[in-house]
């Protein structure tokens, strides 16, 4: 009986939280739309979605890792390395575009796999292991590309991955770039993996109580490696999307992107101590960040203040998480 009321309470709180999160995003939209006629236009909404895509991909991937109670600091530079590798496949080796995509995504997965092995087999704390990978990936990206951008100009189909518009072909005038489409498909995939498959179940199990999971016979090492590799796949896709959007692989870019992604996850209500979280929360978190930045730009708020406001939002969101936990 007691657990039942507890569960009900918890359920209601969860609903309230999700509602509030969507509510805040909606409020932001309403506020910016009222403040400027240039905010709520088709073109600008597409810009916001496009600006969310890459960060959103990284955030989706790292959500899985954070739910285990781990962290992945390497996602920013692994994304860069993935982009550079697809550049190597397509521009240096003249391989077909789909192999380039596979190469990029595969690179992300390999880096994730390496993270997983170092963390589960060599017992390094995730913070240190992925900090190391962050540097390795950054260095490799610079070495492989010889510190110069790799352009995809001779493979025009590559830039259509993110910037072409299937939707626009079906509904003329409605030019939503493919990157947004890919992002939406990835959200659906991530949600299914997290809520409907064993990977998701074990993810939460490890995060709630790693020792208990181990004692009940779960091969924690193996599943952790799987989860870090999964994160790598999303990161690799983010890298390919980034390269496609810029029509070039920029080897010096990427550091600092992990923090934006982690901020989106945290705003979305996923706890850094593990055991709880949702992909929808992460997506809303990523949208809150990009909407805020875009809106402040549209209002011509000086850049210095944009950063201050974003920081306040991050702190506020985590504070809310703490209140929720106590409440």
């Amino acid at each position, binding site marked *: 009986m007691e657990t039942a009321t507890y569960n009900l309470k918890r359920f209601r709180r969860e609903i309230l939280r999700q509602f509030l999160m969507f509510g*805040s995003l909606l409020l932001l939209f309403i506020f910016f739309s009222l403040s400027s006629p240039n905010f709520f236009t088709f073109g600008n909404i597409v810009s916001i979605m496009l600006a969310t895509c890459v960060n959103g991909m990284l955030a989706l991937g790292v959500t899985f890792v954070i739910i285990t109670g781990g962290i992945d600091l390497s996602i920013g530079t692994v994304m860069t390395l993935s982009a550079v590798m697809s550049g190597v496949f397509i521009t240096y080796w003249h391989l077909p575009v789909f192999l380039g995509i596979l190469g990029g995504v595969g690179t992300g997965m390999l880096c994730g796999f390496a993270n997983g092995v170092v963390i589960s087999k060599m017992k390094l704390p995730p913070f240190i292991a992925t900090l190391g990978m962050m540097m390795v990936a950054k260095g490799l990206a610079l070495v492989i590309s010889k510190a110069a951008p790799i352009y995809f100009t001779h493979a025009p189909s590559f830039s259509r991955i993110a910037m072409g518009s299937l939707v626009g072909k079906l509904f003329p005038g409605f030019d939503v770039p493919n990157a947004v489409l890919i992002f939406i498909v990835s959200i659906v995939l991530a949600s299914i993996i997290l809520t409907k498959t064993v990977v998701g179940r074990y993810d939460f199990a490890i995060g709630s109580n790693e020792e208990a999971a181990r004692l009940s016979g779960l091969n924690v090492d193996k599943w952790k490696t799987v989860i870090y590799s999964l994160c790598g796949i999303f990161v690799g896709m983010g890298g390919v999307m980034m390269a496609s959007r810029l029509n070039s692989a920029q080897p*010096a870019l990427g550091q600092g992107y992990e923090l934006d992604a982690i901020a989106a996850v945290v705003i979305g209500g996923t706890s850094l101590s593990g055991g709880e979280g949702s992909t929808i929360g992460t997506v809303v978190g990523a949208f809150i960040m990009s909407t805020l930045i875009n809106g402040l730009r549209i209002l011509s708020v*000086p850049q210095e203040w944009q950063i201050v406001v974003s920081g306040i939002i991050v702190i506020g969101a985590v504070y809310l998480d703490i209140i929720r936990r106590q409440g």
Partner: protein
Amino acid sequence: MKYLRSVLLLVVLAVVLSIGIACAEEKALYIPMISKGFQHQFWQAVKKGAEQAAKDYGVTITFEGPESEAMVDKQIDMLQAALAKKPDALCLAALDSKAVVPYVEKAKEMGIPVIGFDSGVESDIPVTTVATDNIKAAGYAADKMAELIGGEGEVALVVHDQTSRTGIDRRDGFVNRIKEKYPNIKIVDIQYGGGDHLKSTDLAKAIIQAHPNLKGIFGANEGSAIGVINAVRELNKIGQIVVIGYDSGKQQMDAIREGLMAGAITQNPVGMGYMAVEAAIKAVKGEELPKYIDSGFYWYDKSNIDSPEIKQCLYE
């Protein structure tokens, strides 16, 4: 409902902050400037010049740039937001001259004139580009070098690289001026140190040791110039070799005050910002503009390093 209250508080806070900060909308011309950065003092100086022009001409500007010069994608997000505001003109210092092309094309479609500053875009669309004429500035450095060493003797160059536009222009500007005007000056060596302080120091030392009669060295950017200063100091050749630098930075400025360095060329970021806004206004009015506008440079040495005109162009 402590939680709900906090959410509301947060949103209200964000809203109030934004309103407070957002400037009152005016009907003046609006010109956003998208730069390569905004924290670096060079860009702050560009911003200062742009703001001065905005004040003088009564237009509204905003100045934005990504946190690091690697963030090509962040710059594109800024560019998109700027275009969404349907500005009257746009000033752009592209981080990647190719990646921005589709957005510059979009600006053209929307009828928004684009003015490049600092570096160009690989497209014919920008009405004009306001940038430092490095060839001219390096030529002036060569004149100064000739004057300081008495019009004859051996000189050498330490350049950051042989592939970048600034590296090539500064090297050729210096070398060609010497060849054209000063037949008695011989350029004995040109070395490339990647702008790396340590590497430039080592190779400047090697140059000095290889050429005992060397009278002067030109360091073509901040890192190269600092390398030359270090080499002269380590080999105890202070006063025997004329050192001329480029750009600024604390170490270079200290060396000039100490007399270790004869002087240096600085770009004119304040002027660059001012001229970019000026060009944008002219473009909106439909006036003819040249394809390139030279934002000029200054020669600074011990005598004028603290003058207000120079000081605003230097950074530590």
